[in-house]
């Protein structure tokens, strides 16, 4: 079993930033600092956590989702994280001017879940069903968050910050964008292959979400076929 390197690295950085406050000072989303030119804070703000409980929950969630994504052989995990992080920061900056500070990985986690489930829609029946269910719940959850202006059943009780629903929507949109960007070609090929008369339609669909390079199928192929 391979090591989910990117996920462990991200969680490690988030923990280090929490434990070393000067790092948080440099990385946190600070609206005034961003306005004066410190643009990196739009992305690095996601790695800053404002309470221990927020850090624990975000890191557990990212560890679970990131590990699944990396074990499935996803090459674009870094792209999902960086795009979602930047889009989340940008969305908060543009749509929530009332917040001077922002921190938390949940926007990236949302993006990761959406990407994982979009990718899973071309997988075997059971996994596909679960992914469809999770995507529907994510859409419902984001809708409820927007209408209520808060998160559902916040587990950590009172927190030193207010929930920002736009961060989850931004993470989900960023994931959709990266998915289309990275899987668009495969999606078109799959739909062509599944057209009537195509002899390899079934096999290509089964292999659709795994790595195929220059006609050589990676180990994920046998995994998909067996499952």
């Amino acid at each position, binding site marked *: 079993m391979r090591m989910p390197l990117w996920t462990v690295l991200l969680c490690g950085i988030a923990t280090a930033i929490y434990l070393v406050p000067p790092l948080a000072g440099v990385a946190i989303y600070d609206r005034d600092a961003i306005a004066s030119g410190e643009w990196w804070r739009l992305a690095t703000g996601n790695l800053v956590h404002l309470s221990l409980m927020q850090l624990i929950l975000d890191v557990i969630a990212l560890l679970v989702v990131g590990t699944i994504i990396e074990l499935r052989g996803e090459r674009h995990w870094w792209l999902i994280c960086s795009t979602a992080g930047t889009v989340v920061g940008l969305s908060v900056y543009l749509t929530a001017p009332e917040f001077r500070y922002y*921190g938390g990985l949940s926007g990236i*986690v949302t993006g990761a*879940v959406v990407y994982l489930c979009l990718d899973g829609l071309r997988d075997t029946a059971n996994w596909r069903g679960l992914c469809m269910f999770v995507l529907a719940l994510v859409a419902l959850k984001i809708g409820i968050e927007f209408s209520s202006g808060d998160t559902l059943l916040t587990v950590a009780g009172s927190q030193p910050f207010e929930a920002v629903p736009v961060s989850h929507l931004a993470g989900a949109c960023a994931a959709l964008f990266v998915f289309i960007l990275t899987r668009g070609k495969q999606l078109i090929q799959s739909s062509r292959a599944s057209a009537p008369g195509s002899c390899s339609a079934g096999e290509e669909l089964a292999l659709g979400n795994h790595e195929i390079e220059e006609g050589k199928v990676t180990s994920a192929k046998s995994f998909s076929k067996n499952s």
Partner: protein
Amino acid sequence: MQTSNQSRYSILLMVSLFIALALGGCETSRTRHNAASVVDFLYPDSKNPVVVKPSIPVLTLPLRVGIAFVPGTGRADSALTEKQKIDLMQQVAGHFKKYPYVKDIELIPSAYLKAKGGFSNLDQIRTMYGVDVIALVSYDQVQFTDQDFLSLTYWTIVGAYVVPGEKNDTSTMLDTVVFDIPSRKMLFRAPGIHHIKGRATLANLSEELRLDSETGFNEATKQMIENLDQQLALFKDKVKERPQEYKVLHTAEYQSRTGGGSIDMTWMALILALGGAFALRQRRTLP
């Protein structure tokens, strides 16, 4: 000639019948009318009105907002019990608490507002609850229990609204006016109107009208909340466009607001379910 006389006679007869029916209708007219007017509350002396000159409002964000039903006069108050008023105010407050520029919404009990209390009464409320902005809710409900000329249209006392009325119809209008108390300036207002077609028979008339009254208030409240949302958005634009008319200050607390992306129970449950399903699948596929 004879035909002409006959037609004249017919027209005369029809007009007479019409007048007779109309007068008869007026005599038997029964209309349940419950209202509370914000104009009567704020400017009670219509003969010698006190001229209140509004000044430039200074809105300090986040705002502490009060919400109250203006008192009715006499029997008018019987339309809504205190519990119903609190429930309706909670619906409105629940919707607007989410806005970051609203710190608190205080529900002001009716007992603290005096009939024709005016701005001096609002100053008392401001001192008592520490609110600078108040949303005054007024209402006007008419239940036409008979059909007549007077009930064909009805001019609400809340504002310039004409509501139609047929037998056993219930017309409800709620109106919220938001005032900045120190400057006496009206910031914005939004109405909610609902009309219920009469379904009652003589046997269940009283019960049906009571239910219609409740439904009317609930539905009008929903519409009023939607309208308040729209008016609030327009007001925000107005504040930005006309800084000379509205001053906005931000408290240090408001300026250093912190937002966070948080994982909640539902999120965590979903993610753990995904992780569990993936682990199971991995175990099955391993040789």
